[in-house]
């Protein structure tokens, strides 16, 4: 599954069902592309991230061989780009190489006019590149102007208006590789949208003509302006509405993309609209507005018509806004009546483990095993109080973007956030409940405004992240320079951090006076994913002499008479496969630890080295014997050390970084170091993010 966002949203439809039958009220964009019912080809390359690279590759990539292949197979490839089998794979690869340039141009273009209202959001290069030689690709011709997604408008409204039994649950219809996804809302048996809202029964006096009756209704509504709410409920002949998202995800991730869209966007939007419809007949009234504008302005060009519709109807605006944001993987902040809702498909921008090098990720992704996102377990979320928040934007900007009232508690909180302060200390200084702070924090993380990090400390160690976005550095160099004019340039700064054995951040701060600005620079680097903290994870390791000592103790106490078995397990797994299986893939049939084998014609004896240490993976769940080992380990240490050890022993599981343990248990770095030094023979540490 790709880590890159790929909404593949082609358009949004609004259809309603009245006594006149189904009707397509509105669709956005005005002239959606249908791609001939084909799926978006699965992107191999990462043109979103490194345009320079791909463009420089491009010249050579489309060398003579590939060009020939493209010319020959153009139409064949488009037939089924995703059902690629071995035979057509090479063709597909060539094809994709060829298309990289076109796609890139589109991406750049899209980005540049992300926020401008454009009826035709894609560039002509893309149209050319995506238009196949198939016959059903004439959507730009005059004659098919009233076709939407390759269908007549009336027919389209029919297929996205399912029978009542299919309503109020997920609607998903795929035509070839293009999916129509919605949550059709149907009035219930009592004629109500929701079971709670009381409504007068519908009546059907205007079901004979189609256009005229609707016009009359609109007029009557206008006359009754003063009393819209009541009038609406009596005039309501709409029995169902359906907001349909049209998508063409790549076949390999079809279900995933569709589920994602339904879960995060479609269902939530439909529920809000149902609520508003039940409350104030919102969808019906807005539909009438849109239809009226459409009828009165039949002679207008489609762009002018859409300008008018968007001016008149807030629902049309909402749909357009939703399309623009969601199709570009942004957050859609929608105003529906007096309600604000935000919808998004969450981005994968935090990674606990390093994804394969070949797998493209969003630039600026953050690598940290402590990362908290919506996939985090409860256990991980418990740590959030000890973590700090790193804002991904200016605090003032976040407050205004989230439309938080200045001076409100939340605004105060956001402004007080610092990546050096844990949430717990923030809650104390703001006089807020820790739970409330945690929920604010999760909110900010979910809405892409912040990231949970181990509180920044100059004594900690930082490395250049293996996911650092080193491509397209130019702009970042400039903004780093603008932000921190007195510091070394971005590349030199990264070089400073990465060209020696990792050391504490303090080592690169020239003087005390520079501490503040260096920490600011550090949080800037973390924000853009250049740098991550190198954390220390510790396990207990029990050498044989401890084990033997414990065994002797046990024998002395008469608890065990077993002859000593010197083969200890290497790690304390419940399966003992590690301990027994010593021959591996070798052709060993001997029961001894010696295997003879022939290697390069030489007679060879393979002897297995005895396992010495056992690493305890879960000291918290230690068995009786293991507990004896542990107490043997700490024997002979001063009592305060021993007390500290017992406090910490449950964290010596390789999962919780020491940096966080210190905060959780409120122990100083010095004490921890002293303890670990004392038991140095019995611990094993690893350092990673």
């Amino acid at each position, binding site marked *: 599954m790709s880590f890159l966002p790929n909404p593949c949203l082609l358009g949004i439809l609004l259809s309603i069902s009245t006594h006149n039958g189904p009707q397509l009220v509105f669709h956005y964009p005005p002239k959606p592309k249908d791609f001939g019912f084909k799926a978006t080809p699965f992107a191999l390359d990462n043109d979103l991230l490194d345009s320079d690279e791909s463009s420089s590759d491009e010249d050579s990539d489309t060398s003579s061989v590939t060009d020939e292949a493209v010319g020959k197979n153009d139409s064949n490839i488009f037939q089924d780009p995703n059902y690629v089998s071995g035979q057509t794979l090479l063709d597909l690869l060539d094809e994709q190489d060829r298309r990289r340039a076109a796609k890139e141009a589109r991406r750049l273009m899209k980005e540049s006019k992300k926020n401008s209202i454009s009826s035709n959001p894609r560039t002509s290069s893309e149209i050319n590149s995506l238009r196949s030689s198939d016959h059903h690709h004439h959507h730009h011709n005059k004659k098919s102007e009233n076709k939407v997604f390759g269908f007549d408008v009336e027919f389209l409204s029919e297929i996205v208006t399912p029978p009542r039994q299919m309503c109020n649950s997920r609607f998903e219809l795929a035509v070839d590789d293009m999916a129509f996804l919605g949550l059709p809302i149907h009035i219930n048996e009592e004629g109500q949208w929701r079971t709670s809202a009381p409504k007068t029964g519908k009546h059907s006096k205007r079901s004979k003509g189609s256009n005229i009756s609707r016009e009359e209704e609109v007029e009557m509504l206008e006359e009754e302006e003063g009393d819209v709410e009541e009038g609406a409920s009596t005039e309501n002949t709409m029995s169902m509405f359906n907001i349909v998202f049209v998508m063409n995800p790549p076949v390999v991730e079809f279900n995933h993309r569709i589920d994602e869209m339904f879960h995060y966007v479609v269902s939530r939007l439909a529920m809000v609209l149902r609520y508003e419809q039940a409350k104030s007949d919102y969808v019906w009234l807005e539909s009438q507005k849109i239809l009226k504008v459409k009828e009165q302005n039949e002679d207008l060009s489609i762009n002018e018509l859409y300008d008018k519709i968007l001016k008149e109807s807030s629902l049309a605006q909402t749909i357009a806004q939703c399309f623009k944001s969601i199709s570009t993987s942004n957050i859609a902040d929608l105003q529906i009546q007096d309600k604000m809702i935000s919808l998004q498909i969450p981005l994968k921008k935090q990674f606990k483990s390093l994804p394969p090098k070949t797998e493209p990720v969003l630039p600026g992704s953050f690598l940290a095993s402590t990362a908290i996102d919506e996939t985090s377990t409860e256990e991980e979320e418990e740590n959030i109080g000890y973590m700090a928040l790193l804002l991904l934007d200016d605090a003032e900007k976040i407050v205004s973007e989230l439309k938080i009232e200045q001076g409100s508690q939340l605004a105060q909180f956001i402004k007080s956030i610092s990546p050096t302060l844990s949430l717990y200390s923030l809650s104390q200084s703001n006089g807020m409940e820790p739970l409330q702070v945690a929920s604010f924090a999760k909110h900010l993380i979910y809405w892409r405004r912040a990231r949970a990090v181990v509180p920044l400390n100059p004594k900690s160690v930082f490395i250049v992240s293996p996911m650092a976005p080193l491509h397209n550095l130019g702009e970042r160099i400039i903004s780093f320079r603008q932000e921190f004019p007195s510091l070394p340039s971005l590349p030199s700064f990264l070089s400073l951090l990465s060209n020696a054995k*990792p050391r504490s951040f303090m080592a690169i701060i020239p003087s005390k006076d520079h501490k503040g600005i260096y920490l600011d620079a550090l949080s800037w680097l973390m924000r853009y994913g250049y740098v991550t903290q190198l954390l220390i994870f510790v396990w207990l390791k029990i050498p044989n002499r401890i084990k033997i000592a414990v065994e002797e103790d046990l024998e002395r106490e008469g608890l065990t008479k077993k002859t000593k078995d010197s083969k200890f397990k290497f790690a304390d797994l419940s399966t003992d496969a590690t301990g027994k299986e010593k021959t591996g893939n070798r052709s060993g049939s001997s029961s001894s630890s010696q295997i003879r084998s022939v290697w390069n014609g*030489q007679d*060879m004896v393979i002897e297995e080295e005895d396992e010495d240490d056992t690493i305890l993976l879960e000291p918290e769940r230690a068995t009786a014997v293991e507990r004896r080992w542990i107490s043997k380990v700490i024997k002979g240490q001063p009592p305060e050390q021993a007390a500290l050890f017992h406090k910490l022993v449950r964290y010596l599981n390789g999962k919780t970084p020491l940096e966080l343990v210190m905060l959780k248990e409120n122990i100083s770095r010095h004490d921890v170091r002293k303890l670990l030094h004392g038991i140095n023979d019995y611990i094993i540490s690893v350092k990673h993010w």
Partner: protein
Amino acid sequence: MADFDGFAPIEAIFYTVFHPTEGTKVSHQVPLGSIVAPPWGSEFEASQEPLFDFDVVKNYIIPKGPLCNRLITLKVDQYSLVGYPVQITAPHYARNSFSFNFCFVFNYGANTIPFESAIRRLGRMFKNLEEQYHILSKKEDMVFFKNFQSSSTANAVLPDNIAESASLDDQLAARASSIDSNFTPSIASFSQLAIDLDNNINSSTPIGVSTKNGNVMTLESIESLIQQIYQDLNNYSECLIPVDSGNSVDIKLLPLLPPPPRVNPEDVPISTVQLNTMVDVNWDPTMLKILPYIDGINSIKRISLLADADYWVVKSCIQHLMYYKCITITDIFQFSNIYAPTADIDLFLKDPNMATDCQAYVVSASQFDDIPFDTCNNPLGNNSSAKTSTDNISGTSRNRNSSTASLRSGKRTVVLPSKAKLFYLYRSLHQGQTVRNWFKEHRDELEYIDVRRLLTFGVLRGLIYRVESYPLVDSLLLKDSNQASMFGTLADRLTPTREPTLRTLMRRRNSANVTDEQRLQISELSRLLESSKSFDAICTEMSLDRKSVETLLRTMGPFNVVNS
């Protein structure tokens, strides 16, 4: 295939037609009663309640024209229906058209994609068969035709067999009166009819549908066809059902794999299977040529040079092998590399098989006593010294060393390194430390361990990662932006230059006697630097070793090396 867990079971298959008088109806279904209650009364006991309400979805199963001849997938209740509705328009049909659909039912969340091409093909095949032989429309009774009652207009409207249709239609008309709605007797009459029809076809079409034994329609009934598809696909993931001598329903389900990721010239393919055991006569010649060089040491670029094959073809071959997961990609092994643990290093402790696999993979007969470290850092290695050094690592060194050892003792003892030792070795890797230094520090522990294999194993299993080095030149990175000129100079001034005097010195000297070749190299290097390529990529692209690239870089001015 680790990430593939079988195909979704087919819950049901049904065949629907649009009946001229009865409308959309389910003609056949497996299992019986899964779609609609069986119409044949109590003779057959329905094995189950219908899975869903067919009436609700029938407009999507036999849809209007625009949805026809496309693959239609519809989710309903707990099920996912996949079909390929076909509509054939021809004047001889009762309603000028004939519509049918072979529809497959899966569970809601099932991955139906492997079935889609088969369902599409099935629909298209029967569309053709129907257009040519009316194989479906004549199957049940004749109600689908206009000439059901009278044959007078038939000659004009039946386009396929104009000459023969008169006699045929006479028969049809004769039989029509005797045909009742019961399906079974109509088969008998139909087989007779089919023979007649087939004689006609045979005379007029070159396809040569077999008639000799009269079994033009081995397709006994659609019922048995879908029954067999249902059983074979669910049990064997494939089926091979002859329809007539020229046509058959051949389906083999294949999992849909994502396209292989993009590869770079400096990537090193390493096989996960015994590639040479898989070769057959159909293999691509380039593929055969490159096989011997896929050894976990050669980069793709170098493979193409060694095999004397075009790079782009080699690249495609490598991606092809990646698609089938026969190879994975690692990095170029050099003693100047840096490796460090990842967050998944604990898998070595937790995965019970990993440590054992690792032991078996890395154990080696000899220590690398005489590896010439300093010549190892040429990743492309088109000069001979680097070539021998990399070969050494792969195994020839083993050969030589063990032979010298055997001369001494005749028999050699190899100690399989303990798991704990391997873990400690992995964790002792860290940022800012080259393999060379690490090796020197851990020389004793690394006895009997193949260093390259140890590191490759760690990288492939995600225990450690390669820290790549990127040379960055500020002024080149800023080239694109409009502030470049301003910042170029600013950056030059502010970048802490190591030895400014030396630099200017170098510049002055170089401006005088830079050769044309160097100038070319510098311009290529600048191009690569603009897109922040790693040293490996630059060395591979320019066929130079890292030292030469660094020398070139120095002539160009100050640069930073970032290890990421």
